[in-house]
């Protein structure tokens, strides 16, 4: 057994990205089901015992909602495209100017199936994001970012740790309403809890800011005025180039060479600005997560999955299923997804579960 440690968060994200690419390339319910099952198994095996570690379930619920909403909206507004009619909804006769928009009418089997499979694809992608979210600690992700981005990152991490505390506050205030003999349900109940919760959150953030200040947050190495101006100017020009480049990408009259050079130029400039800005920080990082064989394994199975998805795209896409039949089994894709199961055994446990 490996000794417990945190897996580098980028490895988890690369792995999840590989699975998500597979999910995005297919509507085959077998493959999609495998993707979700693999993500769920690895999460249950390797998620840490922290608040964000429990977020996977939320993403699954969100996915279920996406399927439901997509099916309902698709049935209501979808266009009829032939095939076996399952049932008919009362249709609304729309005026002339709204031609092309349809409401209600026949619901056919192919239409319904493609709606469901399409929803499943979105849900599977969401499950992959959820898996990465609960496996990779947001604060460890922050450690690996360039230090010029550190301030923004801290805000995000603080928000993440605040969220569960605020839920706790709301719970406490709801029970306090009961102690005053008031109704805890309904809009009034919600409103009267929301304001004190926000007040409490504001107070908490002030306390935190004071604590961070007294612990040395935001200490700067000496930066000359000239250097500070250079950094600001580089960022500004880089963003300008990026904007023009993005515009060029949309306009066919501008030659692609100009567009490409603008975009690559702006990326290079942003990188340079980051390097200069990072030098102005004196921050160091405690125990950076190393990149060793478990990280290589996790990343490469993810990438293998993505490669399999791209190379077999034609064979795994289900082009317009007409009736509900058992889908064909795309062997390569299923094997690639199954390969993504290996991090469940080949990675170390997170430290907070290692002790158990």
């Amino acid at each position, binding site marked *: 057994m490996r000794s417990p440690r945190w897996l580098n968060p980028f490895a988890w994200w690369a792995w999840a990205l590989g699975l998500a690419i597979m999910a995005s390339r297919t509507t085959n319910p077998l493959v999609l089901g495998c993707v979700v099952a693999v993500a769920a198994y690895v999460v249950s095996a390797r998620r840490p015992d922290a608040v964000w570690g429990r977020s996977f379930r939320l993403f699954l619920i969100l996915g279920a909602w996406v399927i439901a909403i997509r099916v309902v909206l698709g049935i209501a507004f979808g266009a009829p495209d032939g095939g076996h009619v399952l049932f008919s909804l009362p249709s609304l006769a729309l005026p002339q100017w709204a031609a092309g928009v349809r409401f209600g009418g026949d619901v056919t089997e192919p239409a319904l199936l493609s709606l469901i499979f399409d929803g499943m694809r979105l849900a599977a992608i969401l499950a992959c994001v959820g898996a990465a979210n609960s496996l990779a600690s947001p604060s460890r992700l922050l450690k690996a970012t360039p230090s010029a981005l550190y301030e923004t990152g801290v805000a995000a991490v603080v928000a993440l740790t605040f969220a*569960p505390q605020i839920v706790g506050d709301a719970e406490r205030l709801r029970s306090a309403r009961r102690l005053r003999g008031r109704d805890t349900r309904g809009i009034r109940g919600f409103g009267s809890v929301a304001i004190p919760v926000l007040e409490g959150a504001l107070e908490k953030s002030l306390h935190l800011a004071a*604590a961070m200040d007294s*612990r040395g947050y935001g200490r700067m190495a000496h930066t000359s005025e000239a250097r500070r101006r250079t950094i600001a100017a580089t960022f500004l020009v880089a963003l300008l180039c990026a904007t023009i480049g993005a515009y060029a990408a949309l306009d066919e009259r501008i030659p692609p060479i100009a567009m490409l050079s603008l975009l690559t130029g702006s990326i290079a400039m942003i990188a340079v600005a980051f390097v200069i800005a990072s030098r102005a920080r004196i921050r160091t990082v405690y125990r950076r997560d190393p990149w060793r064989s478990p990280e290589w394994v996790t990343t490469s199975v993810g990438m293998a999955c993505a490669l399999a998805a791209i190379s077999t795209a034609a064979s795994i896409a289900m082009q317009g299923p007409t009736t509900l039949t058992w889908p064909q089994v795309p062997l390569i894709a299923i094997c690639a997804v199954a390969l993504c199961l290996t991090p469940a055994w080949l990675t170390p446990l997170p430290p907070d579960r290692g002790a158990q």
Partner: protein
Amino acid sequence: MIRFEDVTITYDGNLAPVIAHANLHINEGELALVVGPTGSGKTTLLHAINGLVPHFSGGTLSGRVVVDGRDTATHPPRELADVVGVVPQDPMSGFVTDYVEDELAYGMECLGLAPSVMRQRVEEIIDLLGLAEIRNRALMSLSGGQRQRVAIGAVMTTHPRILVLDEPTSALDPGAAEEVLAALQRLVHDLGVTVVLAEHRLERVVQYADRIIHVPGNGAPVQIGTAADIMRTASVAPPVVQLGRLAGWNPLPLSVRDARRNAEPLRERLRSAHNEHNQAGAAIDALAPRLLDVRSVSVAYGTKTALDNVTVTVDPGEILAIMGRNGAGKSTLLGTLVGLHKRSRGSVLVSGGDPADMRGPELISRVGLVPQDPSDLLSRDTVEAECHDSDRDARAPRGTTATILRSLAPDVATSQHPRDLSEGQRLALALAVILAARPPLVLLDEPTRGLDYLTKSRLVEALRTLAAAGHAVVLATHDVELVAEVATRVIVLADGEIVADGTTRDVIAASPLFAPQVWKVLAPQEWLTVAEVEQALGGVR
């Protein structure tokens, strides 16, 4: 090490200064204790040491604060982070990361120390403060005492020469408090760190202090002196000092050990005295229906058992204290009595009805709970509006709450915002709100957190009056001195089970951790409080 030169601090919008013309000099390696009534400016004084006042809080500071040769006027808190470590009142509110080890390293990361140095210092602090078992745990999952020690460790890793702590033991049970104080002792004695700490529970810390800074409040001059000198006249004093003052001992004892050496003559005088409180506890009509009847109640959060087979009854006129470690299930038990938690087993009857089935006026006219943070109960922006709402909720005639509030805390201005009240006034307001519905059963969760001795004695008065009027009072607390003063019965919870249930004398005297100071000084005689001794001495003369 720390020098205050004619320091006057005034907050914006206030005319009177919080601290006026303070001249202090704290030497290297001292443990200085800041004492004073609630709201007297102790926290302000502490925060002035690392420049949070006025850099962060606003307001004006005249005079000079010099820390290790650096003037706080020209050094903001972050530039003092390598000299002064500040542990906030609620350690959780100052945590930036989510795991113990990362939190320990955070300050060093900000200072830009080399990774190898950081690694070594984290290991050292883990050993020094005994954090090895919890180093990989999430901060949210720690107990109060563990959080406090992690917070101390997190500022100690930057090797500050001064450690500033704001009420480090107030929220802790006696055992956890001793853990934290032992850790502090170690820092002072082994590493020569200068420690400045503010605390209300003087009985826990006064014997460790080299010098005391007395902040009397209302702009009165700040005094500094040796612990024994200041304690002779200070406006707040722990029971052992009060006993020493009463018996006229010189030098004034600060610890139970000192007092016991002097106590022989006092014990002699008391031998013949009659302790009236010994026979306390009126005979209770066994046939009368119980006010509160809890039978084999179990409560679980997920897979964790919070209460396990708890059976307890309370009669009118009783004051029951629930004691036990942080997380032993005290708050859960109180919550269950008002129907906040789902029981997995057992029954709760309050005046013959199950509180879980009640709501609205029916509930609050039978049982009222003042939660740990009294401001949870308050939602309006003035005291007056709050009282008015409370009358309406309780279906009581207009002015009921205001009248109760005046009897509990006469000095509350009705136009104030509840958040601007002092800790004690806020508790009084919350109690008044609860009492407006005249519930026969009154529950209080940790009522003395952050209260000074004067406010505490007012609370004791109020609780006794309630009990005399036929209410039953149940309080969950860590404060053994409060229990000694006011409780008629004590139950001790451990891991959700009742491990002791009996009269105050039987339960707390049997425990070395829970026995009040007066008891420890005068054992084997059975005296719980200074007031008892005073009364008995009056009888002897």
